[in-house]
């Protein structure tokens, strides 16, 4: 199996700070720390070392990344290894950014650097193996880096961060604890009463800043958007009642009202009996048309957007929001009436 190893100009032997402007280069085989790494890898050969000056990467990130990814396209390695970058911020950032981009291209990647290096964030979902703050930690870092790299190259599923020695990437994964949730709750509560507050999951919410108010609706194209699971009767596109994976756009075809004969809600999170007696209760087309006739809103957008907001992970709803907002913006919509349930 093949690995490609990324280094900065210094570790690739191209020169010190004075060579930090060096553009990307590709060298055959392992170089510098790559030789020590090669000795630790299991059934993996470092076919190439790719390198870039730290300043060049920082100042010409797009070009540098394009060239480096081009090298990866040529070599098609099973794994990208980068660093160790230790505590060096610029080097760590380059390692992390390249690794994250490689992961996007389905090349498993692992970087070694100090846990507080800003490159850890840049690495996204690439694996990061902790290293000391300076080069004195090389001897410790290489075997750890090699172990994770060998596993990734072999396509082996990695164990937990603790078992495999990499930094947690932020995925929430299930496990079976030694104690029941009830016992864990009592442990946490007694610790908190004793002055030590701990938690198994952090809080925080994605607060959306309200945009500036629309001052004059009479000049604005207004759209109706809902997560109430409102669809044409019979649910032709099979919008799920729960855990929707997408959203739909339905043309209003100049309709004046959402009649019960033509529309229904398939939402599985509330009792839809009343909503289905009059679907305008979910998507108030009748009232919006009145406002349109009275000139209080400029015009109603020709389609409404719908999904089911029920058991939807926040990441998924965020995607729906971005996609729908993107279409609305292109259509020149200036305000949305969003009905939630």
């Amino acid at each position, binding site marked *: 199996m093949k690995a490609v190893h990324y280094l900065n100009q210094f570790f690739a032997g191209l020169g010190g700070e004075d060579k930090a402007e060096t553009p990307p280069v590709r060298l055959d085989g392992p170089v510098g720390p790559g030789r020590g790494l090669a000795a630790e890898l299991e059934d993996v050969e470092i076919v190439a070392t790719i390198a870039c000056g730290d300043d060049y990467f920082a100042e010409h990130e797009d070009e540098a990344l394009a060239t480096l990814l081009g090298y990866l396209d040529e070599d098609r390695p099973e794994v990208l290894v980068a660093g160790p970058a230790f505590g060096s911020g610029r080097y760590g950032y380059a390692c992390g950014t390249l690794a994250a981009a490689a992961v996007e291209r389905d090349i498993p990647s692992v970087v070694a650097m100090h846990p507080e290096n800003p490159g850890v964030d840049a690495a*996204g*979902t690439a694996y990061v193996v902790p290293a000391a703050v300076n080069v004195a930690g090389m001897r410790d870092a290489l075997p750890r880096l090699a172990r994770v790299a060998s596993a990734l190259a072999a396509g082996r599923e990695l164990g*937990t*961060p603790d078992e495999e020695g990499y930094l*947690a*990437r*932020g*995925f*929430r*994964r*299930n*496990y*079976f*604890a*030694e*104690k*029941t*949730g*009830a*016992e*864990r*709750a*009592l442990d*946490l*509560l*007694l610790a*908190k*009463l004793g002055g030590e*507050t*701990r*938690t*198994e*999951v*952090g*809080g*925080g*919410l*994605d607060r959306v800043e309200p945009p500036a108010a629309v001052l004059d609706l009479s000049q604005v194209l207004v759209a109706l958007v809902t997560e109430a699971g409102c669809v044409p009767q019979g649910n032709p596109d099979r919008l799920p*009642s*729960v*855990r929707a994976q997408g959203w739909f756009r339905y043309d209003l075809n100049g309709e004046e009202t959402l009649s019960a004969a033509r529309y229904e809600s*398939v939402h*599985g*999170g*509330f*009792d*839809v*009996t009343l909503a289905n007696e009059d679907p305008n209760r979910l998507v108030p087309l009748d009232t919006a048309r009145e406002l349109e006739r009275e000139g209080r809103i400029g015009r109603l957008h020709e389609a409404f957007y719908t999904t089911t907001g*029920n*058991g939807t*992970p*926040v*990441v*998924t709803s965020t995607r729906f929001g971005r996609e729908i907002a993107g279409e609305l913006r292109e259509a020149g919509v200036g305000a949305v009436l969003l009905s939630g349930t």
Partner: protein
Amino acid sequence: MAWQLATFSAGLLREPEPLQGVNIEIVRHGEPVRLTHVLDAVEPRVRPDGRAAFPTEGKAGEGRTNRLDGVVVFSCLDFLEEERPLHEQESIVDLAGPGAEFTPFARETCVVLTFRPGEGGNQDLEARARRETLALAERLAEPTLEAEPARVETFAMDAGDRSLPRVAAMIQLSDLGPLYYQFVYGTPAGQAGLPRIVDPAELLDGAVTCGEYHWAAMRNPTIFFQRNALVRSLYAEHGKRLSFAGLVLMRGYEQSADDKQRAAEAAAARAQELGADGVVITTDAGGNSHTDVMLTCRACERAGIRTTVILAEETDPESTRPILTDWVPEADSIVSTGNLEELVEEWKPERVLGGDTLLDGTVAANAGPIPVRNYLGAANQMGQLTLGARTE
């Protein structure tokens, strides 16, 4: 007032008598069986004094109750689709294979009742299935009346050691309408005068039963109240690390912002009446009810009562943004009972009971990987099981 719980061997289980419109099968430990459309799970119990094991009048948690150890009665029912007022969600129990790790029932003898839709609508069907399941659970425990118990436990509350922190449990019970409510003495939670203080032994003794069929993994079936790990842990720690201050039952799915706030403050007031220094707040079902829990957490903290909250997560396993459904800054101590969105490895059972087709139309015996979300009680938010989620 003390309550005694006498435990009897599963060897006393007899073949149940036939019930009209119900298939009954007994599944022994380790058989490769998948149960589908599972509504509830109940432990067989009977009272030697002749009072009801799942009373709708009088008081539970007094006198003595017999339990059959290692036996679970399941009710399964595939509702009539056209009459579904709310869409109940898939509810599965795997008695072997990888899914068996997510249930405590795979190690027990399972009496599986599959109800066939007959006359009447879904609410009638549900009421009948619920009543007959509880009644059968009671009949199955009757042989204990003539037998010697393996052990007898006594549950009693006393003032405890004043030097220890006073800790109460606050258990949330859902009420989102028909098919989505828990019962307190046979009354839907929303009409049961919640929040209210009850003797913790009442909870263990059949005062609360399940009629809530929303997300399977976040469901608290009757047996999780009967065997409640939180209340049992509090009794066990009483006089050791804490003083057990008592139990507050409260409602989830209050229907307006004002009602949610009022109910949260009322629940905190009940905890104050118990003299609690700290409370563990549990959650029933998801979404809307998480908001009730967060508001209750905030109201308690503002009343000077420290809180730990138990809840499940619904995070895309491929995302690194673990965002809870709702959250308040006061919720700084949370136990996670797992991530519902993770998939459980595919397994093909040799037999399926409860219905061959899942709600999404797939064949239950060949359903592919199933999310944790669909496994009954797997991520229940009373902390009954050991599942958790951590950052990797």
